Every structure is written in structure tokens, then in C-alpha cells.
């Protein structure tokens, strides 16, 4: 039951070609598992489906990035031609003149894209982890998001049926974890980390600090250890 893995390379070594991965990142480097992403690039698994809020933004437009820093994001996996499909809410650069690697690959027909509203993306991932196969949401009614989706009325308002998302692996970033996997995120970097941790078969975390059980207050734990499979300490 040892969850501590010594290297990032070992933590991603069994990710096969064709796997579906959830990778955190609201859009900036905060919460993004940059070390695991680099390890996955070096590992080289291909034909991956990536579920993430963006398709790699920070490295191009500096979103949420300290001036001068050059964060790694999933753009490196696009450039390395490891990605078959991305499911995201914010897939391209807000600035058309500075397109991301993903946008170029998409327009060349090299990768597929499913755009999902951000709240629906979070809720679909949550549903995957919570045993809910599908749910109705008001988001997207009457828009392109409704294409191919069931529309149903409850109490006089229309809703879309959305289905759960699950993944084979989640690559996440936390501030601290104890050896049992109880996890704390920092500030706004909890974002999708706090959801993806529940809905992948194998949940891999990179953390700044590994603690002993009891060092995190039981009432303050963000992600209970039962969700977490592998922990790698940064640095």
C-alpha cells in the first residue's frame, strides 16, 4: 500500500497508447502537473485522449503565469504528436494571432476536439467519479452544444442530457499529500484537480511536500486518500 513513487517517469510508465487521460490546469501553471506532463512526453505514449480545461494555453499566452516564466502545458504533447483528441472548454488561444500548438494541429486535421462548457465539463467528470451515468443541465440549451443531445423539460424549462466522463489516468498537481494520499491543494489551483481526482482509474499526483498521516487536519482534507494511487514529490 505504498503510494509514493520515486520518479515522474515511473509514475507514468504504464500509460499505454490510446489511453484516456484527465490532466489538470485551469489555464495557467497553477495546478498544472508540469513534471508529469514532461514525463509523459518523454514516455511517448501516443493516440491519447486528453480531458482538460484547455488544450495548452499558458505556454503561448502566459495565462496566470509570472512574467518571464515559461510553464509546460499539454501543448508539448500536441507538438510531440501524442494526442488524438482533446475534450476541453477553452481549447484555443483567445488571441487568433498567437495560435496554440493544438489549434494548428486541429486546423490541419491532425487532432479531434470536443468543446464542452466548463461547468458541464466539471459536472461530467464529477458524475464519472460519483456513479452518475448522466444528468440534465440548463447549460447549452439552444446552442451548438445541444446538437445530438436529448432536450427534456422539467418544470417548464428545457435541459440537456449530459453523460459522465471517466479516464484511465489522471495527472494532477497538489500542494501537499500525506502518505495515505490525503491531499491539499493551494488556493485557486484546486480547480479541476479536486474533481479529476475522483474519476480516473489511476490517479497520479505531483506534490510539493509529502507528510505523515495526521499532519493534515482530518476536517481540512480536500481529496481523501482513497482516491489517490500514486504520489511523486517535486524536486
Amino acid at each position: 500500500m505504498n503510494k509514493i513513487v520515486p520518479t515522474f517517469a515511473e509514475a507514468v510508465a504504464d500509460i499505454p497508447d490510446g489511453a484516456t487521460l484527465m490532466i489538470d490546469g485551469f489555464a495557467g501553471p497553477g495546478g498544472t502537473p508540469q513534471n508529469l506532463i514532461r514525463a509523459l512526453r518523454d514516455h511517448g505514449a501516443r493516440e491519447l485522449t486528453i480531458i482538460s480545461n484547455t488544450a495548452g494555453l499558458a505556454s503561448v499566452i502566459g495565462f496566470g503565469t509570472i512574467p518571464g516564466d515559461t510553464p509546460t502545458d499539454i501543448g508539448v504533447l500536441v507538438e510531440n504528436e501524442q494526442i488524438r483528441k482533446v475534450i476541453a472548454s477553452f481549447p484555443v488561444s483567445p488571441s487568433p494571432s498567437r495560435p496554440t500548438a493544438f489549434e494548428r494541429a486541429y486546423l490541419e486535421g491532425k487532432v479531434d476536439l470536443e468543446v464542452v462548457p466548463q461547468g458541464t465539463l466539471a459536472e461530467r467528470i464529477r458524475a464519472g467519479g460519483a456513479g452518475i451515468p448522466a444528468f440534465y443541465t440548463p447549460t447549452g440549451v439552444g446552442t451548438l452544444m445541444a446538437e445530438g443531445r436529448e432536450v427534456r423539460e422539467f418544470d417548464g424549462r428545457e435541459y440537456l442530457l449530459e453523460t459522465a466522463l471517466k479516464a484511465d489516468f489522471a495527472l494532477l498537481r497538489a500542494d501537499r499529500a500525506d502518505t495515505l494520499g490525503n491531499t491539499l491543494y493551494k488556493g485557486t489551483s484546486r480547480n479541476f484537480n479536486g474533481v479529476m481526482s475522483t474519476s480516473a482509474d489511476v490517479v497520479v499526483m505531483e506534490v510539493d511536500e509529502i507528510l505523515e498521516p495526521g499532519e493534515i487536519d482530518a476536517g481540512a482534507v480536500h481529496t481523501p486518500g482513497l482516491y489517490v494511487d500514486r504520489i511523486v514529490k517535486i524536486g
Partner: protein
Amino acid sequence: MEKEKFPREIIAMRVARELQDGDVVNLGIGIPTLCSQFVPEGRSVVYHSESGVVGYGPMAEPGEEDIDLINAGGQFLAPIPGMAFFNSVEGFAMIRGGHIDVTVLGALQVSERGDLANWMLPDRGIGNVGGAMDLAAGAKRVIVAMEHTDRNGNSKIVRECDFPLTAQECVSLIVTDVAVISVERNGLLLTEVAPGWTANDVQEITEAPLNASPYLAGFRL
């Protein structure tokens, strides 16, 4: 009298007057972000961001940036007492569940029924929806803050949006650089105009038909 177009700050100031004491408010990127600077004194507004924080304060000072404390536009925030952090599923539960009193959003187009288009330029063939659809569908009140016309002079207030929609019939108030327009059951009601503008002047640059309020006035700032 010369017709004046207000700068972005005045649009934001006018929107800010709509924010009531105790309101939970989510501000979109662009002009909406400016609103927080202009909330009338004596009103305490609680800011929510889908990046995962509620009760945030001003932007961080240069040199004080923290990558773990950002708003949904990627701007760095300063920590203040009373904030609370949450994950993305909780943040959007707040939005979809009707716990956000007001959201202020930018727009590419708004229709006469209050349909909103603000996430995708059809020419580009790809777009960022982000949290816009959730906010437009979930917030109790949607206010649009934008320029009245696009850079080519085309009306952004239209009969039918031809850009992809964000949500149907969601906008309740439109504040532009020349007018304040309320979306009513029977159409758009022009209630305030910038200095030098008449109702006819505004109608001339607006595709959708406007009803001029009998109480038409200048911007209430």
C-alpha cells in the same frame, strides 16, 4: 450637441450601479472586470470567479503575484480576509444553481429577445466557450457590457444573432458606450443615452427595434 461615445470605464461605472449590497457577482473578461472599481460606496459586493474563489479583493501588486491565486481571466489576485476557495465542480454548482446574483459579460451580439452570442466568431471555426454558457444560463441576472457597434460599425444589438449562441433569452440589461437598454417581454426598452444622443440616433446604429422609454434620460452614474 456633439454625440459622445463613453469610454470603457464609464460603461463599467454604469453597470456597477446595478450591483446591490450583498450581491454575489461574477465579472467576465474585458469591460466587466473594470466594474469592481466603480461599485457605489456603502455597497459590499461579493466577487465570485470560476477559477475557484469567492470573496476576492483587488489585483495583486507587481512582484506579489501568486500562480495559485488567479481569477478566471488569469489575472493575479491579492489575498484578503474572508475569501473561500473551491474546486471547479463546486464553482459551477454555485453558478448553475442560481447562487450568483449578477454576472456581467461581454458580447459579440445580443438579440432583441436577450439571446447572447459571446463565445465564437464563426469565421474562426473554433472557439473558447469556457464558463460563458454556464454563467449565461445560471446567473440570476445577466448584464451585458460592450461597445454598441463592432469595429466595422455593425450593430451588435440585432433581431437574431447570426453568431453561435451562448444562451437563449438570458440578458436582462445591455450597457453600451452610447445607451442603456433593458430587455423586456415586448422588446428592447431604451432608457438612457450618452450625452448628445437622441433615441433616433441610437436606433440608427441599432439593427433591433428599440422602444424609447417615456423616462429616457442620461446615463445614471
